[in-house]
């Protein structure tokens, strides 16, 4: 096998862009939490942006490469090392057979993506290589990585020297820890009392330790409805902020269920989801309102910018990587 897991890190899973097309069967989307860093990591090694990569959380793994490989690491800077020597993030790096990749603690943020040229070779489940641990299915055996796991990859190596890397500006959003998260008014925003609405935008919420890939549980001033009302279960999505009877909001994340019966006070703007995904338990967050139209407009703009960046990287990566498949 190509990569041996010497130590798994805190929570390392194989993820791609997510499992779409089956939500009507109750199948969860899963996929990368910070989709910008994840996609960039793939592009840097000449992969399609939705190839299977490793999502690394807080404490990174130690990996022994038994094959030559071209890799890149993007997202939170966890001071990655090859054979104990510091290696930069945001750049395609050559790893030689016998090399050991390891990580330190994140300088900021909490999620990092390790992409390998050619992708991580796991069987797709329902069209996706994302891990859904509650299934459990998908990714590497439907679970996070453990010591002695072995991952399969293609052998790849650099044809030309790479003398460029991604500008840190591409992931500077990870450092914007103090700015409030922009949200759109939720479908049941009007159900909440005026004082609850006010409190939602004023409170500095704390991300509780029970938070995970399914959702971020927030601690702070509870939010109550005008009057008792049951919501008829409807669809929810990545970034939906629902409020259960105890009044404490939950932000639904990548492993959320497809439908929910709690009222939704707000929806995190898509442009701020990657930034939100870099927050961890113990961090504080606050919210500020953005109109739906503005949020959608900004999202379209940013995605168009991303596509332009993608084209530039693809052009630069042409012919740079050789694979055992060639």
């Amino acid at each position, binding site marked *: 096998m190509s990569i041996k897991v010497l130590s798994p890190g805190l929570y390392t899973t194989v993820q791609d862009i997510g499992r*779409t*097309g*089956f*939500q*009507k*069967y*109750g*199948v*969860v989307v899963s996929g990368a939490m910070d989709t910008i860093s994840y996609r960039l990591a793939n592009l840097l090694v000449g992969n399609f942006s939705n190839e299977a990569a490793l999502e690394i959380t807080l404490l990174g793994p130690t990996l022994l490469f038994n094959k030559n490989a071209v890799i890149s690491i993007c997202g939170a800077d966890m001071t990655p090392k090859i054979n104990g020597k510091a290696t930069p993030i945001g750049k395609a790096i050559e790893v030689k057979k016998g090399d050991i990749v390891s990580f330190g603690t994140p300088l900021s943020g909490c999620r990092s993506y390790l992409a390998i040229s050619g992708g991580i070779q796991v069987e797709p*489940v*329902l069209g996706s290589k994302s891990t859904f641990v*509650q*299934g459990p*299915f*998908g990714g590497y055996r439907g679970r996070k990585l453990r010591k002695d796991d072995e991952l399969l990859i293609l052998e790849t190596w650099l044809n030309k020297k790479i003398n460029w890397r991604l500008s840190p500006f591409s992931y500077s959003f990870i450092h914007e820890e103090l700015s409030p998260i922009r949200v*759109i008014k939720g*479908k049941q925003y009007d159900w909440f009392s005026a004082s609850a609405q006010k409190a939602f935008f004023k409170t500095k919420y704390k991300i509780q330790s029970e938070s995970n890939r399914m959702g971020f549980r927030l601690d702070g001033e509870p939010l109550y409805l005008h009057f008792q009302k049951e919501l*008829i*279960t*409807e*669809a*929810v*999505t*990545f*970034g*939906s902020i629902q409020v259960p009877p105890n009044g404490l909001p939950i932000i639904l994340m990548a492993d959320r*269920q*497809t*439908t929910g019966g709690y009222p939704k006070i707000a*929806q995190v*703007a*898509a442009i701020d989801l990657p930034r939100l995904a870099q927050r961890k338990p113990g961090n504080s967050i606050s919210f500020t309102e953005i109109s*739906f*139209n503005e*949020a*959608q*407009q900004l*999202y*379209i703009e940013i*995605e*168009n910018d991303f*596509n332009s960046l993608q084209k530039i990287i693809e052009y630069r990566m042409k012919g740079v990587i050789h694979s055992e498949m060639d």
Partner: protein
Amino acid sequence: MTLSLFPLSEGAITIEFGEKVTKVVNQRVHEAAWKIAQHPFSGFIESVPTFTSLTIYYNPIIAGNFELVCKKLLSALSNEFAMIDQNQKLHRVPVCYDVDFAPDLLLLSHSLNLSQKEIIELHTKPVYDVYFLGFSAGFPFLGGLSEKLFHPRRPSPRLKVPAGSVGIAGNQTGVYPIETPGGWQIIGRTPLRLFNYESNPPVWLKPGDQVCFYPITKEEFFNLEAQDEH
């Protein structure tokens, strides 16, 4: 018929077909899903039905903004063609109501003032509608439970409810496709797999289908379970 369209997110629109959970409203949801699937607009990703609404997931870079997509949706929905031969199936689901698989049957019997036999009769009599699948993969939200069987869920959920467990909560009955924590009152178990991620589609019961339960013995349960593994 008044429809309301709400932008759930930059890439999702929830269409409301009614305010009350009724078979008629739910039928409209499935019909709409079918119409949109017939001629999916460029950038359409998938749709998710629930009791009274249908949520459309789309890529706004390809499909256009909310206003534009709403126009496309309304146009698709105004299509006069009704859903014909939608492959709606009636599924017969075998359920073993033996005490070993029905930890809450006795409790319900006391609570509802019905004999266990009466509970089983009331549960196996109706033809239920699969309103939608949600909560977990393959979990069916069924409509049509007899009022006599309405019962609140357990005060706190069990940590593990075995796969195939048939339960009651509030005015709903349903089946747990995979082992999960759960707060429903468990009155039986089916040996058949409702969810299998190795098949496509990965579910047996589909939104819009119909279901009826029939009682089986423990021996029949183990036989069917063995058969279903293949």
